[in-house]
């Protein structure tokens, strides 16, 4: 297996009025607070992360359109699809808004080679889920390149480094064999089942903690 790519995390824009010392103290305080309350990190949108093949960042109009196209196809069946633009756009808005509520969420992936939207990977944590879920969606044409694994590792590393989390889960349908293979590659193991409040049961895949070998 290829060595995990070490992502380069670009600093979140800092207000220019703050002096470096104040910024530094603020960062330390926020990081300390984040260990007990991830929301205290204060992020309201995803910080840009660059990996070998991807730029992971905030949702652009092109990202929203690509996600709605994805939702219109049968490829979205494990996300409750196919669904029309009405539901698909609301899903985009919910994921974007989650950053303000939680201080973490999903990144929108851009393929560095083509500049095109390639998928959505990150932390989904709606009300009703007791801990954040590491989830991944890769659009048609970008499969088989290891992009999901690359982005999932970067998101997981970011969560461990910045939120004080020591584990993550992924909720995967028993018939979603591609996703199960990816969870296994990431070192996750089955850890019970989760039943959605709207019905439907999925396997809980538990990820290894920071520093654990996959």
């Amino acid at each position, binding site marked *: 297996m290829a060595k995990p790519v070490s992502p380069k995390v670009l600093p979140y824009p800092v207000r220019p009025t703050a002096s470096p010392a104040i910024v530094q103290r603020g960062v330390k305080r926020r990081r300390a607070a984040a260990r007990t309350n991830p929301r205290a990190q204060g992020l309201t949108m995803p910080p840009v992360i660059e990996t070998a093949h991807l730029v992971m960042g905030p949702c652009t109009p092109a990202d929203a359109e690509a996600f709605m196209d994805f939702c219109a196809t049968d490829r979205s069946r494990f996300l409750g699809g196919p669904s029309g633009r009405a539901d698909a756009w609301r899903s985009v808005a919910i994921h*974007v808004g989650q950053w303000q509520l939680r201080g973490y969420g999903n990144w929108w992936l851009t393929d560095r080679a083509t500049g095109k939207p390639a998928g959505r990977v990150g932390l989904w944590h709606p009300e009703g889920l007791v801990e954040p879920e590491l989830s991944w969606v890769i659009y048609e044409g970008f499969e088989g390149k290891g992009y999901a694994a690359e982005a999932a590792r970067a998101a997981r590393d970011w969560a461990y480094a910045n939120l004080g989390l020591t584990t993550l889960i992924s909720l995967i349908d028993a018939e979603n064999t591609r996703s199960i293979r990816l969870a296994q590659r990431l070192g996750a193991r089955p850890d019970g089942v989760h039943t959605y409040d709207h019905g439907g049961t999925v396997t809980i895949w538990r990820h290894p903690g920071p520093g654990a070998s996959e």
Partner: protein
Amino acid sequence: MTVTLQTPRLVLRRPAPRDWPAWNGFFQSERSAGVGGPRSLGASWRGFAGELGHWEIFGYGMWAVTLRGDATDTAVGLVGPWTPADWPETEIGWMIWDDKIEGTGIATEAARAALTHAWDVLGWTTIVSYIAPDNARSIRLAEKLGATLDPAAPQPKPDAPVLVYRHPRPRAAA
């Protein structure tokens, strides 16, 4: 950029995570029947996240309506632009969460400010409000604002038709 509007009695500001209790109190109650409620806790949360996301995506959205001088900064409702990708036209919507402001004209005051902003600053060329057929309070507000029913307007959710009220363009629009 986030725009805050001020009226004689109100401050309309961007909604924030601290508005969740007021939002959820409304959406878990029967008062939300006119806007698709009551909702489960999960559905209520997703709706709130979507409101916050709308602002991030467009740079505008429905404002949290607060009373000037209220030190608790508690939102009594949401009023303003709502333009999801599937909407056929640009909408100004409203939902009033707090019973106590019933009959005070506060909803009208907030909606007028939102409409003026949409015409003058957002540069909208048409404005509708989508209202459930049995939401009598909302219909009264639309009529008070001078909007008129447009039976020929395209429906936002063709499977579940609503009343489409169209707002008059101000005569002085430059």
